[in-house]
């Protein structure tokens, strides 16, 4: 290996070690600051230098072109960096200046149920961008794991859990008595009938609650309502605290894409299942309710550069799998049992 080649290899090694340290630094400063740091001008110089080094390596080291797997790995890395740069905010600005493509890199849009919207609050700024189509929210809903759980806690810190189903009982022992779930309400309401409060389930709404009785030796039967959304206050003399937990299994927004007054795409988006349309991905991000009704907040992310990054991933993993496993397995099959302790195989 001549001195120039060795110098390039050393530069590559230094670049790898530098990125390792920068990654560790990024891990300490948190995701937001790390994102800013890795998108800063000095790091842009680093990314360009890395691409230059990888390209120089491919041209200088004949081995990288002679061994296809090694070539795939290195080209894969180049594609990942180029794709990531193309999809960055600076990349979007460049696309606008050079190609006239004006895309919103990333932002959020809030939509009320049965309404449509095309304005996007651009991330990291006060600007509002507009999509060339509208997104309509037909419905938003949350799905839960059934049954929920009733959590009982004693003042001594002991905790018990039981499925939130009518008829379930739990003996707490040590004079704390027995807890029994009498009724499960989807939409708890209470009414006064003949001067007595009467709890009932009203169809349509959502106010999950449990009716729980507590039976203690030598004490009258206690009755309590435990609400999922309004935990309520705890009496300091009460030996037991209870909470009703229903864990969300999914958030679903039923979306329609409307362009020129026509519905051109529909999808129920949920976590792990975004909608892809018109060069953007739409993700379920938040939800809420105010005086105008229920709304969902979608995260809108441009897909610029994404295919290049994925192509890089495929080349990278394809090259690595072939180089480290495929070639080795094939060699072993061909030369079996030629590999000995004195002459072990090499990957390089």
């Amino acid at each position, binding site marked *: 290996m001549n001195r120039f080649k060795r110098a390039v290899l050393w530069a590559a*090694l230094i670049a*790898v070690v530098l990125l390792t340290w920068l990654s560790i630094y990024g*891990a*300490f400063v948190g*995701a937001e600051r790390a994102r800013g740091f890795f998108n800063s001008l000095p790091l842009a110089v680093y990314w360009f230098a890395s691409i230059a080094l990888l390209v120089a390596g491919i041209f200088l080291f004949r081995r990288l072109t002679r061994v296809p797997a090694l070539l795939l790995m290195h080209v894969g890395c180049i594609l990942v960096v180029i794709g990531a740069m193309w999809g960055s905010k600076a990349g979007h600005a460049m696309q606008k200046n050079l190609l006239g493509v004006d895309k919103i890199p990333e932002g959020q849009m809030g939509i009320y149920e049965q309404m449509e919207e095309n304005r996007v609050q651009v991330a990291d700024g006060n600007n509002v961008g507009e999509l060339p189509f509208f997104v309509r929210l037909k419905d938003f809903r949350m799905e839960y794991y059934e049954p929920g759980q009733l959590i009982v806690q004693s003042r001594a810190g002991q905790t018990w859990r039981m499925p939130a189903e009518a008829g379930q009982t739990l003996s707490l022992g040590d004079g704390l008595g027995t807890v029994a779930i009498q009724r499960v309400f989807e939409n708890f309401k209470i009414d006064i009938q003949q001067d007595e409060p009467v709890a009932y389930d009203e169809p349509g709404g959502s106010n999950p609650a449990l009716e729980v009785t507590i039976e203690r030796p030598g004490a009258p039967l206690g009755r309590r309502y435990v609400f999922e959304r309004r935990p309520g206050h705890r009496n300091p003399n009460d030996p037991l605290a209870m909470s009703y937990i229903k864990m969300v299994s999914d958030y679903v927004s039923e979306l329609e894409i409307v362009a020129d007054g026509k519905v051109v795409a529909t999808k129920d988006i949920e976590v*792990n299942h975004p909608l892809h349309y018109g060069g953007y991905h739409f993700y379920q991000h938040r939800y809420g309710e105010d005086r105008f009704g229920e709304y969902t907040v979608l995260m809108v992310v441009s897909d610029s550069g994404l295919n290049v990054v994925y192509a890089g991933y495929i080349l990278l*993993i394809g090259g690595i799998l072939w180089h*480290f496993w495929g070639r080795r397995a094939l060699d072993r099959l061909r030369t079996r049992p030629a590999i000995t302790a004195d002459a072990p195989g*090499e990957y*390089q």
Partner: protein
Amino acid sequence: MEIKYTIQGILIYSTIVVYLLAFVVTIAGRARAGRWLFFGGFLVAATSFVYRWLDVRHVPLQNLFEVFLCLGAICYPISWICRRFLRIGGQWADMLIGAIVLFPAGFVFHARPMQLPPALQSWLFAPHVAVYMLAYIFMAKAAFQAGEQLLNRRPRIEQTWIPPEQATYELIGIGFPLLTLGLLLGSWWGKLAWGHYWGWDPKELWSLASWLVYIGYFHWRYMYGKKLPRLNSLWALTGMATIIITLLWVNLSRIFAGLHSYAT
């Protein structure tokens, strides 16, 4: 410290005891008996993993308790593959690694079953975590071989095990594709779940750092081959150190709060 007075706990403690027994028997020169005990421990560990799976009704790789349970179960198959096909020794160390990784599952992390949050309900969940677990055990074995090399311990002549430096290289060569696969599957999943294939999250950055250390190892070894075996071994040990930080410190320390915090 949390002792588990449950069937799950009994299975974990039994595995630890059998693995340690296998280790002691092997060290005492009864390698064959040690291997059978190790296999017995694996059967208990596998039962423990399947029991957990049935209990929580999803692949038990959601939190650190389940991850360590999985690590304890895959030690034996990996050890067997290394012995049978790669002629890499150090089985007594595998027995010890098996007992060590089950210790946090048995005594540190709680075993309360948890339902999967929406982000984890993806087909990518199991392969992403599973390939990382396999990679970690291969890299742990590589680090052990690197330690052997640094201590100048060579296999006895009558044994057919390959030398520690070469064994380190072979093991990293098997673990590295798994490490890469874990990184890329995680990136793809991150895009589907959170909107970004790379979120600069502390866990992501530490996994990238681990991956880069092994990239550095391969380039270094390409440059110097076996001329500087001690430095080769130091690369391998550094890689394992970053893996331990990625697996444990990032999840347990408040310094690194991020998107992967649910894994605690």
